[in-house]
């Protein structure tokens, strides 16, 4: 399946892209992360510490073990600092 993967803040800076279209075999977010980390060092660096990362599926916060079936957009970012 194909998903749009978007990155924000230092995740975006480490990976060097704001978004990309990814073809994946993964069934969960964690599976997608494993595929990305295997690609290149910059992904490994961005995903080194999952406790400092958040994920949203189709613009709703989700867990790393959430299934990807039917998801169009996966976003990775650090904890939010709004307000």
């Amino acid at each position: 399946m194909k998903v749009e993967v978007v990155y924000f803040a230092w995740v975006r800076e480490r990976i060097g892209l704001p978004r990309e279209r990814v073809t994946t075999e993964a069934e969960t977010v964690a599976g997608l992360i494993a595929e990305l980390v295997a690609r290149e060092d910059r992904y490994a660096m961005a995903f080194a510490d999952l406790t400092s990362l958040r994920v949203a599926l189709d613009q709703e916060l989700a867990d790393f073990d959430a299934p990807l079936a039917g998801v169009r957009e996966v976003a990775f970012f650090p904890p939010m600092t709004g307000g």
Partner: protein
Amino acid sequence: MRLIVQAEPFDLGAESVGFAAGAAGAGAVVTFTGIVRDNGGALAAMEIEHYPGMTERAIAAIMDQAAARWTLVDALVIHRYGRLAGGEMIMMVATASAHRADAFAAAEFLMDYLKSRAPFWKKELGAEGESWVAAKDEDEAALRRWQRV
């Protein structure tokens, strides 16, 4: 209820007066305004990144929660993104209710959720380089008090 996400500055005076005037039957209006602290001149600017689309959805969900939890006549959230100088207003929240307890509680609730659950990220640009503002443990703690009640 009104929700605005924009790069442009907003007019705190006009928004405050318009909000209070429009809140028919309210006896209490609370506003919160967030301002870029310049840390005694150490901060050159702040860059606020956000997630277009999700930002509006997340804030609308937070406002719905506040409206379900307290008796509100009206609520307003304005949040900016992009580059802001020290002293510039980042955002504002306003709540209106018959009584002050609801207006205060809803405004604090909205602020606590905006801080940690709306997809904004702040980067400080200073004389000695730039750095992303880290989320604070105390902000997560502030959120937990609303789950307890």
